[in-house]
């Protein structure tokens, strides 16, 4: 613990003096046998100062992870790395592996995306943290190392650290594993922590916790943090500076406020505009950023973003722009009179480029000056699509529900023993869920992973008699239906899956994939082909592509194919199982817009399962929040998001990141403690009690009510909530706000 306390450096980051990390013109190339080289990183330069928090943002395949692996010297030996990486006065690229090992883990440490594969399953978590300590500190005894490990686990907020240090990684939940990884990363008081998508695999509530821990770790050790992510919302609240990467290059670099308030590069503008915002979602349409990054093996001439850029001009397709300052201070006419090559050649700007990165907000775009000076506004670059003309859903709302679920139960027996298995418990995956969807309406089903969302929709789609409760589709009870009737009913209910790659059979051309539902209903091949062409057109794909295979399409296109298949039989209800969470942020908006269009055009109903609240707010009419197999809050989406009544809904909403640094830093937050309890546990009373921020603030008599009586859904205005103390719910918000201020005070 001594180390942790001895380096208290919570002072604001200063950009004076020598940088801690200086990356200059770093390029990484992977030679391919019998093919063109893959140019993963193409000459990036940036600096990180002591105690600074840098966010590197980019789509998958933009080279952000490769560049950080190059820092650690962890690239495969076949990779060609050029440029220079200076860390604390040493050039990392000139060190051999042995010397690098002395730096890795002690001075630079890394947190990986998948905490399960980053921990060895055969050693206890405590041993692994102790190992990290002993590797770099030979004077430390085994006992002392173990004691430090326990302390570190306590620092990162793992309850009962003494006991937990002796546990194995598989006994930890995802969030706890990531905490253990952070503990390991800060074990040797590193000067630099690199976190590569540390929260991507986690739920929003856990993500919020992990980001807090990361911030705390940074404050404790005084280390600089490089956070690599694809989610602008994640960096908005925490990063000091943001670097945007595209096709292996830095395209924009500046302070967080600058980049968010005045982005100069059209790509950044597109990213910012495409993210659904919790504040405005549902009121206006999303701005799509179509297309996909160019292949790193065959980069086009000129700006790599030109093909997707709505304001691309001829020069963009000719020369690639370099990183330059584009401030309002430079008069437009003057800037244009500068000779062309001098403005775009990074070699000429060489010595000054690094200095520019020091303080300035730089962007790589030929038209950045126009953007910076206000000649081109954000809305000019990426105009918002016109709103939908018709909204006829109200007229039909009176009709009978397309889907109605009452008291649905699905318990799985937990057995032990091979031959003579006996039941030792029950997994209450779905424990009495009721909801209904009217024609033309969208129900958003929200909750953390493991709350029973997926089991619920699988129960509906299986169309077998549920263990308890009733499922009515078009008013027909699925339990009592014969084979032929079931087949007819299956026409009306279709599903779109989360992972667009897994959902399409790689062996079939997409025409056959989309036409598959039709084969079941005996549609003739000719009619099928016509319908497939029609569907491809409907989802915005070229009907000529019907004979191509799924792997030839990008993620967004594959999801469109999945949607086309779901629409083939003219269903009335489409179940959307996290349809955009596997896609890059820039692609999500396009798919969401398509879903909204289709809903209006075809009068569809959606059951939209998601954990991203901003997207649910954007598309849903009604929202149901699930926790441990129960619905805890159910009501119109605007009402639930504006005034969440259940403490769990409050926590979910406040955990969702907002891609705006000003709002993000001044928000009221309700942070949840711990993880979702195991659904095998039998909890008396309210099952949210163990994590409830409100529960801890209640008087004993009120707590007793929570501990003994299981709350049922009760109407509070338009919203139904399963909580005994709805009228007290503002308590938790104000308390957490006070707690935050206390933290910030010293």
């Amino acid at each position, binding site marked *: 613990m001594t180390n942790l306390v001895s380096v208290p450096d919570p002072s604001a980051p200063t950009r004076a003096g020598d940088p801690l990390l200086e990356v200059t013109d770093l390029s990484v190339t992977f030679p391919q046998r019998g093919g063109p080289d893959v140019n993963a990183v193409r000459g990036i330069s940036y600096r990180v100062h002591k105690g600074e928090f840098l966010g590197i943002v980019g789509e998958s395949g933009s080279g952000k992870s490769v560049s950080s692996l190059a820092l650690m010297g962890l690239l495969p030996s076949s990779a060609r790395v050029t440029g220079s990486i200076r860390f604390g006065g040493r050039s990392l690229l000139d060190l051999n592996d042995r010397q690098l090992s002395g730096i890795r883990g002690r001075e630079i440490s890394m947190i990986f995306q998948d905490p399960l594969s980053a921990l060895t399953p055969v050693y206890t978590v405590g041993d692994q943290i102790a190992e990290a300590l002993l590797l770099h500190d030979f004077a430390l005894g085994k006992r002392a190392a173990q004691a430090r490990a326990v302390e570190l686990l306590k620092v990162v907020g793992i309850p009962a650290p003494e006991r937990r240090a002796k546990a194995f990684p598989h006994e930890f939940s995802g969030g706890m594993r990531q905490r253990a990884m952070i503990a390991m990363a800060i074990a040797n008081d590193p000067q630099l922590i690199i976190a590569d998508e540390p929260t991507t695999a986690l739920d929003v509530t856990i993500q919020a916790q992990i980001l807090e821990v990361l911030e705390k770790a940074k404050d404790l050790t005084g280390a600089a943090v490089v956070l690599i992510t694809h989610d602008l919302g994640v960096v908005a609240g925490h990063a000091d500076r943001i670097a945007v990467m595209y096709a292996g290059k830095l395209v924009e670099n500046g302070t967080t406020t600058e980049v968010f308030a005045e982005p100069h590069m059209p790509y950044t503008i597109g990213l910012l505009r495409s993210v659904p915002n919790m504040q405005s979602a549902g009121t206006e349409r999303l701005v799509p950023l179509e297309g996909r990054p160019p292949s790193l093996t065959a980069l086009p001439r000129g700006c790599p973003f030109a093909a997707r850029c709505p304001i691309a001009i001829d020069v963009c397709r000719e020369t690639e722009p370099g990183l330059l300052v584009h401030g309002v201070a430079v008069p437009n006419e003057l800037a244009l009179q500068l000779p062309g090559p001098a403005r775009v050649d990074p070699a000429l700007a060489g010595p000054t480029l690094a200095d520019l990165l020091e303080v300035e907000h730089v962007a790589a775009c030929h038209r950045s000056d126009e953007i910076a000076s206000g000649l081109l506004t954000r809305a000019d670059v990426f105009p918002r699509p016109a709103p939908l003309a018709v909204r006829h859903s109200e007229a039909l709302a009176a009709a009978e529900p397309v889907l109605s679920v009452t008291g649905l139960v699905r318990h799985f027996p937990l057995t032990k023993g091979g031959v003579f298995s006996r039941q030792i418990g029950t997994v209450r995956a779905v424990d009495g869920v009721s909801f209904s969807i009217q024609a033309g309406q969208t129900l958003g089903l929200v909750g953390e992973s493991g709350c029973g969302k997926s089991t619920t929709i699988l129960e509906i789609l299986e169309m077998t008699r549920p263990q308890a409760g009733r499922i009515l589709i078009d008013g027909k009870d699925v339990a009592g239906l014969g084979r032929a009737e079931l*087949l007819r009913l299956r026409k009306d209910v279709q599903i779109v899956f989360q992972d667009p790659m897994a959902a399409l059979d790689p062996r079939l051309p997409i025409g056959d994939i989309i036409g598959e539902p039709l*084969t079941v209903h005996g549609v003739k091949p000719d009619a099928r082909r016509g319908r497939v062409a029609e569907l491809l057109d409907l989802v915005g794909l070229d009907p000529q592509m019907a004979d191509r295979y799924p792997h030839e399409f990008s993620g967004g296109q594959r999801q469109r194919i999945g949607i086309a298949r779901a629409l083939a039989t003219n269903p009335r209800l489409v179940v959307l199982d996290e349809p955009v969470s596997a896609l890059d942020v820039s692609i999500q908006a396009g798919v969401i817009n398509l879903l909204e269009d289709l809903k209006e055009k075809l009068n569809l109903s959606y059951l939209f399962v998601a954990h991203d609240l901003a997207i649910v707010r954007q598309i849903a009419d009604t929202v149901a929040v699930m926790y441990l197999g129960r619905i805890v809050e159910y009501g119109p989406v605007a009402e639930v998001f504006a005034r969440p009544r259940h403490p769990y809904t409050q926590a979910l909403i406040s955990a969702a990141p907002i891609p705006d640094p000003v709002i993000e830093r001044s928000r009221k937050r309700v942070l949840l403690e711990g993880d979702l309890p195991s659904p095998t546990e039998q909890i008396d009373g309210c099952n949210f009690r163990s994590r409830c921020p409100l529960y801890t603030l209640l008087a004993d008599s009120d707590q007793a009510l929570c501990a003994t009586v299981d709350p049922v859904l009760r109407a509070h205005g338009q919203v139904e909530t399963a909580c005994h103390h709805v009228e007290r719910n503002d308590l938790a918000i104000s308390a957490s706000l006070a707690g935050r201020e206390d933290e910030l005070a010293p």
Partner: protein
Amino acid sequence: MSLLEETNTAGGTPVVTPAPGPAVPDVISGRTPLSRGRLIWRRLSGASRFWVGAIAIAAILLWAILGPLLYPYNATGRDPLNMGLGPTQLHWFGTNNIGQDLYAQTLVGLQKSIVIGLIAGPLGTLIAAVVGSVAGYMGGVVDRVLVWCINLLLVLPSFILLVILSPLFRGLSWVFLTIFIAGFSWMIMAQVVRSQTRSLRDRDFVKAARYMGVPIPTILGRHIIPNVASLLIIDATLGVVASILAETGLSYFGFGIRAPDVSLGTLLAEGTSAAVTRPWLFVFPAGVLILTLFAVSLIGDALRDAVDPTSGVNRD
């Protein structure tokens, strides 16, 4: 250049270039990525082993089919003037002690062995595919019964069973032998297909088909089998080798092909006793057998490496 022009003509008012690009959803740019089939073919055609094996097996097949037509002697006729003679210009592989021409016999034996191998290998794979995918997909009781059958057949020593049963098909043709060999060669592959199917069953595209109401046989035929096809092709290829070996082994011990039919196994059985004194009786059939098996194995091996890049030599 155009930057200057455009801004100047606009004269400082906000310029918005009409956006033609993003209105059209992203069209596949650049080279189309290689399809899986073409990728496998590229890896396969890059392996010299494959070409050696393919050319060798093509030559052997041609030889086995055309060879007897271009040769004056047949397999059963005797040449009383040249009994027990070594290779000569007249009898290329020599003759046996009753004057039968060994070259003609070897070719006929080769034909039979190859035919049995080509039928029994793929037949075993077919059984494996059907049983494995049904067991894996259906699960439950069906799975348990089929796995029980597989395990039973695995523990039964097939060779001894064949020996015991051989009097039963003494009078029957080689077709029954082929079926018998196939019937005892599918179990391991069925296990592999079953486990693959179990993981495929939980993939979303199979779930999607199920929720559409696609009948089970169609799901198996359209989604499951094609996705394990690469495994099956390899198994069928290597199954040819195993079946030829099984056939020659049985025939060698006198339980497989019987006179007057000839196969490489019966030729070897006759030749072994004279291997020291009249080596040609043994060396030529054995050489042809080894060559054939080697060629098919090379193809099967190259195929496996091409389909599964993580196996064998390609691992790095």
